[in-house]
C-alpha cells in the first residue's frame, strides 16, 4: 500500500526548524507519498525555505501570536485534528521532544488512534511499522499499526540523518483553527535558559559525561578542564546527577535528555543504566572510566578503563595538553 500524505510536526526556533524536524522530513521522503510539514509558530513563514529544501511540499502554518505563550499540546492537537479530517494523512511523524510528545499524546487521544513512541526507524512496505529498542537497548522490537488512521509515531532525535532534497521553498497554507479559550488558562510566563559555554552537546565531536562516580558536583570542573584541553568538546551528565541537582537538565544525556552521536564519547563515573545508554550508544567510539569493573557501561566501551576517575582525568588533561603542545 502506497502512502498518501505524510506529515511531519516541525518545531521552529528563532525562524529555523529544529534539527529533528529536518531529519524526519528526510526520512519521510523515502517512504513515498506527499511530504508536508505542520508548524505552530508566528515564525512559520521564515522556516518554509528550510522545510521545503528537506522535502516538504507544503507547510501548514498556524501563526497566531498566542502560540508563543500557550502550551502547544491542547491547541495544536485541536488544529491538527481538524486538518486530519480535511486532508486524511496516513502517517504523522513527531520528534521525541517535550512539545512533540505533548501534541502527539493529545492528538492520539483526540482521534482515538494508536501512537508509538521512542521510534528509531520506520518502514512502509505494506503496513506502517516502527522499530523501537527496549530493555536497555538489548531488544529491537518492530510494531505495526493495525488500524485507525492516521498512524502517529514519535522518533528519537538523530534516528535519521538530515539531507537536503534540493526542493523549492514549501508552499505556506495557513491553519485557521483558533486557539480555544480553554487552552489559554495554561500559559508560559517566563522562559529561562541555562547558561552554557562551548559547543552544543548535540553537535560536539567529543562529549565527556559525568555520573555519580564523580562523587561531588565540584568534580565536574575536571570534565570542563578536559573539554577545554581537547577543544571542541562538550560536557554532559547522567540523569542521576541531574536529578541530584549537581548540574542543569540541559546537560542530561539519555532517554529523558539529549541524544548524542559524537565521534568519541567519554563516560566518566557513569554506570551505564539504560536511561543513559539510549542517549549515547550511537557514538562512533566510546571510552568508559569507572571503578566498578562490572559496570554495564563497559559492555558498550571500545576502550574501558577500570580505575579512579578522579585520578585519571587530571592526568589525561595534562597528557592531552602535552600532546597538543
Amino acid at each position, binding site marked *: 500500500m502506497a502512502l498518501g500524505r505524510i506529515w511531519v510536526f516541525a518545531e521552529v526556533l528563532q525562524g529555523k526548524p529544529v534539527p529533528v524536524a529536518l531529519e524526519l522530513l528526510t526520512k519521510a521522503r523515502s517512504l513515498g507519498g506527499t511530504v508536508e510539514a505542520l508548524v505552530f509558530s508566528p515564525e512559520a513563514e521564515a522556516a518554509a525555505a528550510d522545510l521545503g529544501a528537506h522535502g516538504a511540499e507544503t507547510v501548514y502554518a498556524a501563526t497566531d501570536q498566542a502560540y508563543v505563550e500557550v502550551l502547544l499540546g491542547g491547541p495544536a492537537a485541536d488544529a491538527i485534528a481538524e486538518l486530519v479530517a480535511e486532508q486524511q494523512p496516513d502517517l504523522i511523524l513527531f520528534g521525541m521532544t517535550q512539545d512533540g510528545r505533548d501534541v502527539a499524546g493529545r492528538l492520539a487521544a483526540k482521534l482515538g488512534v494508536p501512537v508509538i513512541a521512542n521510534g528509531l526507524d520506520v518502514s512502509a512496505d505494506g503496513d506502517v511499522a516502527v522499530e523501537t529498542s527496549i530493555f536497555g537497548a538489548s531488544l529491537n522490537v518492530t510494531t505495526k499499526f493495525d488500524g485507525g488512521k492516521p498512524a502517529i509515531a514519535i522518533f528519537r532525535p538523530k534516528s535519521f540523518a538530515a539531507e537536503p532534497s534540493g526542493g523549492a521553498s514549501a508552499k505556506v497554507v495557513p491553519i485557521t483553527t483558533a486557539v480555544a479559550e480553554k487552552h489559554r488558562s495554561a500559559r508560559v510566563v517566563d522562559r529561562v535558559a541555562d547558561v552554557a559555554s562551548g559547543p552544543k552537546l548535540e553537535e560536539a565531536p567529543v562529549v565527556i559525561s559525568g555520573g555519580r562516580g564523580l562523587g561531588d558536583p565540584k568534580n565536574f570542573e575536571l570534565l570542563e578542564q578536559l573539554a577545554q584541553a581537547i577543544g571542541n568538546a562538550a560536557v554532559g551528565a547522567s540523569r542521576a546527577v541531574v536529578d541530584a541537582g549537581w548540574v542543569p537538565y540541559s546537560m542530561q544525556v539519555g532517554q529523558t535528555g539529549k541524544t548524542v552521536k559524537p565521534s*568519541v564519547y567519554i563516560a566518566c563515573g557513569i554506570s551505564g543504566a539504560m536511561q543513559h545508554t539510549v542517549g549515547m550508544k550511537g557514538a562512533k567510539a566510546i571510552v568508559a572510566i569507572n571503578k566498578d569493573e562490572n559496570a554495564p557501561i563497559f559492555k558498550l566501551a571500545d576502550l574501558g*578503563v577500570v580505575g579512579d576517575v578522579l585520578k585519571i582525568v587530571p592526568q589525561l588533561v595534562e597528557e592531552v595538553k602535552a600532546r597538543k603542545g
Partner: protein
Amino acid sequence: MKVVVCVKQIPDPNTTGQLDPQTHLLKRDGVEVVMDPGDEFGVEAGLKLVEAQGGEVTVVSMGPERGLDAVRKALAMGAAKGILISDDALRGSDALTTARVLAEAIKREGFDLVITATESTDGYTGVVPQAIAELLDVPAVTFAKSVECDGSTLKVQRQTEAGHDVVEASLPAVVSVTAGVNEPRYPSLKGIMGAKSKPLDRLSPSDLGLDGQGGASAGQSITAVQPAPERAAGEIVKDEGDAAKRVADFLASKKVI
C-alpha cells in the same frame, strides 16, 4: 484539594526485562516487581500539596493483581485511598487504552489535579499523561521539575531543551513530574500498618463502561522481536598508572586530538 496520582507496578528496572517469544507480552513470572521509581516522585508531590493546602491524595493504577503492591506503597506513604483496575483483557494494552482506563477512573473519582510521572521506567512511552489530559479536557503541564499550587493555580517549572519555562495554569489540570522534583519519603511503620485499613477499590474495565478495551483492541501489534546488534567487544584495561596515556592514544587514533 483533591489530588489523583497515577502509579504503576513494573519489573525491577535493575533487572533486564524479557518478552515472551510467542505472545510478545512482558514476562512477569519470576520477575521482581516494584513501584515505578518515577511514580514515587508523583506520590510525594501529591502528598506535599495536600499537606500544605488540605485535601487528600487518591492513587490509581492499572495492571495485574501485583499492582496492588504499588497502590499499597502509595497508601503507606500517605495517600488516603487506592484504586486498582485489573483484568486479563488489559494485558498488552497500548498507551491510548491505558490512558482511557485511567482517565475514566479519574473522572469517576473526581479531581482538582492529576499527577503522573513523565513516563514509565519500563515502557518509556511518555504520552499517557497528555492523553489522559485530553480525555479529561484539561491542560497538561508536563515535565515539571518543580510544582507549586495555592489551591486554584498551579505554578510549574517545565523542563525545556534550553532550560525551563515557568508555566501557570488554573485547576483542574494534569501535571507530569520529573524524577528530582522532590525527595520521596519512605513509608513509616505506622504508615504501612495504617495502609491496611485504608479504602481500596478494585475495578474492572466494565465497571468503568469500557468493555472490550484492552490488549486485543490496541491499534498496534508487535511483529518482530530481535536482539539488538551488539557493539563489537572493546578492550577493557585496569589502570596501572598508564590509563591516561592509553586514553590519549585512543583519542589520537580517532583524530580528535
